[in-house]
């Protein structure tokens, strides 16, 4: 189980990913702007950040740069999630320094497994289960 930070401005996307990751046993903090996201990152030092490329106040690339410049955060794993999914986007993201890249629409049955692949084994969650009550 890990502490994940989601930086995503679209409420449905945020709800979907947060729901699935909590059902997989992770703790999830959410932020809806780049500024709030960076603040949350500094405060809670997540194990992994899931970052939307298109945010209202910055691009995911800009956020990534700021994270990498911060001495306390520059090692944090960052996965890009984007609805753009044009040819070359994946390569562009990976060469910019993202640890991973996921395209929207996400695949609900395998999303949490995909996120887990970026975590060290001791932090991974389980398959999403309904035992989590949700609210």
């Amino acid at each position, binding site marked *: 189980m890990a502490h994940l930070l989601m930086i995503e401005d679209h409420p449905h*996307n945020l709800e*979907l990913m947060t729901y699935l990751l909590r059902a997989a046993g992770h703790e999830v903090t959410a932020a809806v702007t780049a500024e709030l996201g960076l603040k949350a990152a500094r405060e809670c030092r997540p194990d992994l950040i899931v970052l939307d490329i298109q945010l209202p106040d910055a691009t995911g690339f800009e956020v990534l740069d700021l994270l990498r410049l911060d001495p306390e955060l520059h090692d944090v794993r960052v996965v890009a999630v984007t609805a753009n*999914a044009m040819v070359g986007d994946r390569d562009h993201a990976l060469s910019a320094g993202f640890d991973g890249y996921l395209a929207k*629409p*996400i*695949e*609900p049955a395998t999303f949490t497994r995909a996120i887990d692949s970026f975590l060290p084994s001791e932090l991974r969650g389980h398959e*999403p289960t*309904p035992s989590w009550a949700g609210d």
Partner: protein
Amino acid sequence: MQLDAAQLATGLLESAPDAIVGVSADGIIVLVNAQTERLFGYSRHELLGQPLELLVPESVRDMHPKHREEYAADPVPRPMGAGMELAGRRRDGSEFPAEISLSAIDTSDGVIISAAVRDVTERQRAERKFRGLLEAAPDAIVGVDETGVIVLVNAQTERLFGYPRSELLGLQLEILIPESARARHPKHREGYLGDPHPRPMGAGMELAGRRRDGSEFPAEISLSAIETETGLMVSAAIRDVTDQKNTQQQLREQNAELERLSKVKDSFLASMSHELRTPLNAIIGFTGTLLMGLPGPLNGEQERQLRTVEHSGRHLLAIINDILDLARIESGAVQIQLEEVDCIALVDSVASTIAPLAHDKGLELVIDIPAHPVMVKSDTRALGQILINLVGNAVKFTETGEVRVALRSTDDTTTISITDTGPGIAETELRSIFNAFERGSRINSTTKEGTGLGLYISHKLSELVGAQIAVSTAIGVGSTFTVELGSAD
């Protein structure tokens, strides 16, 4: 070695390239040399003792004695008749243009006036030719001396700058240059004189000429230098490049506009992609979580209905992806990168992607590849997309049996054929299946699979990489789609 002065003198005289004619004070020829004989066509005994006027054209004979007297009065060595058109008359009556220099020799018998006569027919012809070329030249040719004074112009100079040549000759060159550039120009001239080799002027500088009426025009200028008797003459060939500049400007503007439009198109496609995918995230996502039972268990009917929603959502996503693909191909945004493609690796990769789908349907997916490597020059991504489409189609439209992917190569062509044991395609539909949104009726299943764009996109992509797609089919037996590629040359 003792030089005999007399022998030497005679030798020099007889070998002189000009005709030397010595004339006494009363105009009688007393001396000639070999060249005189050759030039005028007389033997010397026919000339000696004759009046000089024999060698002078009839038209000027009357005037000539007077010229002789004038010269005799003040016999300074000088060229004769500056500005006059001189001519000599041959024995046969024909005339030739001549250059004559005069000097006087004191002898014990009195003063002998010596004329050196040169036939300048060839030189005049060459000068006329030069003049002709100069005047016919499409560029303005302006020659200036070392002080920058215009000494030569041609007809095009008059036309281009709007001056008659009489107004230009003798003026400083700077009159033809815009006022703004005049101050610097003498320096440029000096610079050129320092190293006067033929070259274009002012590389990188915007050059301009100034007309008589004050208007200016953009110019291209090339410089060269000619040695003349009076020193170095620098010659400038000047061309009005107004039209070229306009065309260049137009092209620049058109290119900028094209780039702008291309960027607009690209960003439009990117936004469309984003806007269309975002709602589908929620649709596919939440039907997924519901079907996973995460918020709670579902009854049978709930599950069934949700599967319908999910299925439609995925179908919509497939259509959107295909349309965006198509839009990118049509707008030229797809960049084909020709490279060496490892066909075996590609076929393997496509097969492993489609294999799960085949196995889910209980179909066999057979790969038939040669033992040796097969390389073609193509675009990996485009080719991969074509194969995914064709193999995916084969699996989609086949209920039982197998889908076989065969790779074959000869010296000139490589083919990848996909054979299925599906229902086959009706003859009447063979041509239209490659059209957009045409699906053909081979599907018997209740759900219509596919977006109707797959083959159309494959067709478009094959055009881009220079491949051909052929179909052969038999109803009730199956179909074979073959992708034909050139070899790796």
